[in-house]
């Protein structure tokens, strides 16, 4: 079973409006999957269908190698989720809310509530009514609830909303830890690339209900690392110099007058010096960086223009 979560041509139409259209997602076991898209792109819709809250108009969802049907309940035991904003029974304390959750989930490991509260830094507030919690605390409590029953799959819709930067980092470290130590597969949605960039293994970009791209972080970083763009009169000669004299291997001739050098360790100064010494005429030399943010905007921006 290579994919723990997979959707085939998932489509949801409500009142004649296509919220998502033919979405195919592939999430491998044990990875962190970043689900990216601007507001209203259909992220939550997809996540609702993954957790069986909404039923697809057409297409199918496969979880843990089984097809999700309206009567799939057992599979919910293996999942933890936050969809939209986590809601609680406000008049009860944080701890009671979590206890209630474990009762409903049928999960009875002693101390799991305390552990989860501890992990999210809520131990001090555990006896207070949820009513009095701040936005960030509620979000944390939501995460605590999602991880309470040690699920195999976590589905989190914008989990870092409402958190301060330090809190975001803490939560991200927690996710990384859950993934590496417990082997939990995590799907995180975000409208900001920075929200998932540092932890995701694979990124799926959705816009206007269409899946734009599904790509592993590794491929992205290969594709989009900073590079040095070199405009020269004679690319052949320049390439020879780069390969032979500077012992660079990772560069590419883009067209007749332009070379991109992807080796990060080399300085523009050294390149120009070497080229000048070998009598290669340089028109321009500049450092370029296409960040992931640019890449993401490009993907979603195209969608907007369409």
């Amino acid at each position, binding site marked *: 079973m290579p994919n723990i979560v997979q959707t085939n041509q998932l489509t949801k139409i409500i009142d004649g409006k296509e919220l998502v259209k033919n979405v195919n997602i592939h999430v491998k076991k044990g990875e962190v999957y970043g689900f990216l898209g601007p507001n209203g792109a259909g992220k939550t819709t997809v996540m609702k269908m993954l957790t069986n809250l909404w039923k697809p108009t057409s297409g199918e969802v496969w979880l843990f190698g089984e097809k999700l049907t309206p009567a799939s*309940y*057992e599979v919910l035991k293996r999942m933890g989720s936050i969809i939209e904003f986590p*809601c*609680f029974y406000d008049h009860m304390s944080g701890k009671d809310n979590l206890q209630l959750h474990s*009762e*409903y*989930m049928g999960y009875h490991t002693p101390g799991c509530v305390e552990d989860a509260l501890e992990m999210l830094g809520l131990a001090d507030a555990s006896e207070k009514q949820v009513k009095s919690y701040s936005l960030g605390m509620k979000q944390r409590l939501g995460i605590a609830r999602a991880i309470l029953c040690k699920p195999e799959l976590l589905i989190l819709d914008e989990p870092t909303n409402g958190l301060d930067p330090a809190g975001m980092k803490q939560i991200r470290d927690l996710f990384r830890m859950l993934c590496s130590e417990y082997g939990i597969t995590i799907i995180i949605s975000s409208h900001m690339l920075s929200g998932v960039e540092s932890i995701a293994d694979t990124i799926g970009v959705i816009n206007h209900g269409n899946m734009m791209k599904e790509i592993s972080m590794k491929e992205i970083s290969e594709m989009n690392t900073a590079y040095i763009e070199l405009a020269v009169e004679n690319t052949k000669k320049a390439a020879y110099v780069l390969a032979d004299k500077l012992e660079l291997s990772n560069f590419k001739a883009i067209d007749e007058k332009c070379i991109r050098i992807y080796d990060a360790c080399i300085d523009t100064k050294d390149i120009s010096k070497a080229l000048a010494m070998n009598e290669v005429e340089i028109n321009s030399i500049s450092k370029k960086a296409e960040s992931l943010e640019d890449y993401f905007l490009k993907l979603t921006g195209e969608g907007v223009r369409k």
Partner: protein
Amino acid sequence: MIKLIKLEWKKNNIAKYMRGAVILAAFLCLFVFALAFLGIANDPDGTLDAAEGMGTISAPIELFTSMSFLIFTSVMLASFIVSAYKNKTMNLMFSYPIKRQKILASQMIAVWLFNFAALVVTKLLIYACVSIGSLSMESSFAVDFNMGSLSFYIQLLLKSFVIVSMSFIALFIGMIMKSSKATIIASFIMIFLTQANIGDFSLAGNLIFPAILTVVSFTFAVLSVFNAETRDLL
């Protein structure tokens, strides 16, 4: 199922409703006591000002307890179920590995049980008060019940059953309109539609009406639960 019902009570703060029910029962008891012995329903000349056929004490007792608890039940159903849809805690409930029909049914039974018990206790309390009062005072209404007979208790249980079940009709309306207010207003309308009958029907003379009402109520209860599995939560 029992566990689910208990959890429903716990998370919906049943103690609050318990207090409410006690206050309601005490108030009703006082009111009926005043009707019977303090003459608040009498004309200035001292004769009873009650509608034709309503001159017996059990008529106002049944009427007022039924009215109050039908509304009370609808309020509870609204806050247990309808507002759970609205404030999205239903989303949470439906993410549990429990059949949705079972979740909804447990919520309805939780409310039903509580109110059935509360209504029966309230009625017993009021009847007992009137009985005790009539030992030493003259009642403006004719005392027409006998707490010693078995049929009194059977009637009381059956009538309570019908009344509390009727609130499922209100719940169904509230769920369609996704509004707590609609649930409560529907229960008011039901009182207006049925009070004349509820006020003076007796199980001996009119078995059909409460039977139909109960069947309709449970039909609506089933309808409320039935398509929960395939319907989306919006």
